[in-house]
């Protein structure tokens, strides 16, 4: 089972806190990868919050491909590049790429004053085209292209990856108020970087653990729903695409995500008042192929930075939500929370049930919404 975690804080935090959160949760022989998404950035990225940030890793040739492509697409004004400092060491156990880049661009002239819907469409198109281009030659990976979002993914021993990028050393350069992270535990050895969650699409970030037993159904349905629903390297990508579809495309409130992925049993729906029954039946009819059937825990982050978690309908995967009032953590196992929030009151920890969405607002309020 992958160990997943997310931290939300009133004060910007460093990735080392997320690594600490995951460290004690490591189990088993595999731990085949690591991925982190940081959102609402501070430190060196703070001045560029409204500018799109491209997160990628590539070969030297890939660097040229990316530069030429971005130029061609009108993203000619690269205004900031962060190349993470790397510290190679003996016995390093991961498949590193030659280059890791985090480039901030100005919008092209035609997008500068465009409405947000046009911008987000253009940013997605750009990322998808770039991904395709890099896939053709195998020269790189592009993980996100979005304002105020930084993504890093690698395959290998997660602790080594953290050490290589010097993420264990707490510094003030790379900070954010939201971090979603995964230590990958995968039994499938034919893995690719895109398969590592958290996944990202148009402001939505999501990671999950467990198996998506309705993966084929989900995938077959999603393929025709949106141009951004591609890849499917991991069965967990389906959870992100459904979230995006329900919340972004259909514009339904978040609780309906839960109604779609884990519909209530008919015997429960039938006890409800007629109007509610009708809507729940219609959802179940229309979106039957987006249902998940466990076992999963999901951690999601919305474009407005609301962080949430929910589980499969039988609660077959663990998750805990804990807070000290300033920082709130959602993660697979409580041992990780004890390491990063040792002074919280553990009696207030929340172990969400199978019918809940537990959400954390930007002012650290914890909201619990029950599916009924």
């Amino acid at each position, binding site marked *: 089972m992958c160990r997943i975690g997310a931290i939300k804080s009133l004060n910007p935090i460093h990735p080392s806190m997320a690594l600490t959160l995951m460290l004690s949760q490591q189990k088993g022989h595999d731990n085949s990868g690591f991925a982190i998404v940081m959102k609402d950035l501070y430190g060196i990225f703070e001045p560029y919050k409204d500018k799109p940030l491209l997160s990628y890793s590539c070969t030297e040739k890939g660097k040229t491909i990316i530069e030429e492509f971005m130029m061609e697409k009108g993203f000619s004004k690269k205004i900031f590049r962060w190349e993470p400092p790397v510290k190679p060491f003996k016995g390093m156990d991961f498949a590193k790429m030659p280059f890791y880049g985090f480039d901030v661009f100005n919008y092209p002239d035609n997008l500068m004053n465009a409405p947000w819907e046009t911008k987000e469409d253009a940013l997605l198109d750009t990322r998808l085209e770039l991904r395709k281009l890099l896939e053709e030659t195998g020269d790189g990976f592009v993980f996100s292209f979005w304002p105020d979002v930084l993504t890093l993914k690698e395959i290998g021993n997660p602790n080594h990856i953290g050490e290589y990028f010097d993420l264990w050393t707490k510094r003030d350069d790379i900070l954010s108020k939201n971090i979603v992270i995964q230590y990958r535990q995968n039994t499938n050895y034919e893995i690719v970087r895109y398969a590592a969650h958290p996944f990202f699409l148009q402001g939505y970030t999501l990671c999950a653990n467990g198996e998506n*037993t309705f993966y084929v159904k989900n995938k077959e*349905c999603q393929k025709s729903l949106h141009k951004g629903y591609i890849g499917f390297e991991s069965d967990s990508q389906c959870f992100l695409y459904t979230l995006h579809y329900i919340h972004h495309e*259909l514009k*339904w*409130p978040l609780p309906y995500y839960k109604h779609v992925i884990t519909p209530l049993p*008919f015997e429960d729906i039938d006890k409800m008042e007629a109007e509610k029954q009708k809507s729940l039946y219609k959802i179940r*009819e*229309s979106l*039957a192929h987006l249902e998940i059937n466990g076992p999963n825990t999901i951690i999601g982050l919305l474009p407005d930075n609301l962080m949430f978690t929910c589980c499969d309908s039988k609660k077959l995967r663990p998750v805990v939500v804990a807070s000290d009032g300033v920082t709130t953590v959602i993660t697979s196992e409580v041992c990780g929370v004890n390491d990063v929030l040792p002074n919280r009151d553990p009696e207030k920890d929340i172990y969400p049930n199978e019918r809940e969405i537990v959400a954390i607002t930007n002012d650290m309020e914890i909201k619990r919404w029950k599916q009924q």
Partner: protein
Amino acid sequence: MEATVKINEITQNDLDWKICYDSERCTRCGKCIATCTFNALEMQVEKRAYTAVEPELDNPTAHKRKFKAVPVVKQISDLNHKCVGCGMCEKVCPNEAIKPERNIDSREALINHPGGSPIKRGGRTNLSTERTLDKIKVGRISQMTDPSLDAQRHTFDLKTPFGRILGPEELPTKFIDDEMKIEGPTPPVRWIYPIIIGDMSIGALSTRAWEAICIATAYLNEKHGIQIRMCSGEGGMPIKLLKSKYLKYMILQIASGHFGWNRIIKAMPEMVEDPAGILIKIGQGAKPGDGGLLMAAKVAKHIQEIRGVPKSDLLSPPNHQGLYSIEESVQKMFLSMNAAFQFRVPVAIKVAASSSSVSVYNNLLRDPYHIVGGFFMDGIQGGTGAAHQVSLDHTGHPVISKVRDAYLAATAQGKQGRIPLFAGGGMGMTYDLAADAFKAICLGANGIFAGKIFIQLLGCIGNDNGRCNQCNTGLCPTGICTQDYRLVQRLDIDKGAEAIVNYMLNVDTELKKMMAPIGNSSLPVGRSDALVSVDKDIASKLQIPFVC
């Protein structure tokens, strides 16, 4: 010189079934002859030789060859009275003295064409009995990372939609305080058990057999919460049922003969419940492209009343005369059937699986009125009450690849599930209805429909190996497919219903037993990754893994 044998005379060894008789065990009670509805047996007298000891004065051990007349039961070697292997004689014989035996050297199919007529019969194909479903296994077992479920402990939602499903973007939703409201009309959708008792009419079946299935349907719904639905078949149903609350469990069929609909329409003002649905039958898997025929022999008085017809052969034409295209059928027939029940009842279509089925399905998916509430595809292994043998054995299309094709075609358009798919034709052929349903569902069907297995549960002894299959003759030895008032008494309605109920309760458990190992509590519609095939070609066609 006279020939020692007249080879053109029909004898026992020309026929499919030979009576095996032991006169030593026979008590001449006559039950076998009385019970044989095909008059295939008769009492005859056989000349038997025996040796009798007749002592003489000078020869106390003298014996003579003598003869005696022995009454015996004999098979009539006549095509009009041929034995069909039903085994009723064996069933009634108190002394195990008689039984039919299959004649593997039979010439019957070659010679049974009196006046040039083709062989007609009921039942399923007896030629294409190999099944795709039996070469598919549920190979994806949840074990460690995704635990299997407990079939006894977890809640399983064994329901499937029946009715036109709108896409989420088509739903008339409105949000008030983040609460979804459905404002405006939507097509009627019923969530039903994924197994439908397929269309067998009163007429094809005896009223008693039909009633037994009705009782089982109602019992499963009312007592066990299994929302199984039964399709009436063409020919209507008793007025009493039309006006009862149990109508909600019935799917009314309209086929090309439109039999019974005058009574249905007349009963509408007095209906207390809507029917579960309407099924427009365009074609049938057992005899695709062929119409229906209820022989005059089966058009008894009560059938005349229910169908509103005189005693004569009742012909349902091969097509719905007046419909010339898919579009027209949607507009005219579906619209009028929807309108008849004021758009409260789902209206579905049943077609014979065919090379063109996917085109038809695609067309219906695009119907702008959203009024096609189900697509029933009936494969070559489907059963019937009467058909030409050549149709049963040689025309038609297996349903499994076709249902998969239809599902994948809908998937490619992002429209899977919009018109629920139901697969039929040979479901339950090996008596594994739950496994058949489960596999068809994983391949993309929303559910299945089955007919033959339910009359087999009632007591029909017909099978796919040439046994009986005389549903068309009015002489059904089990009283199931006949209107003869004496024969129908052979069926015990309550025991027949009980057999169906027991079997369906077992199916319900078995379905859960198949869902639990793959870790699913909802029907795995389209979850093809749960399946593997031990046949490479089947695996390739259905896009599932090949295993060996």
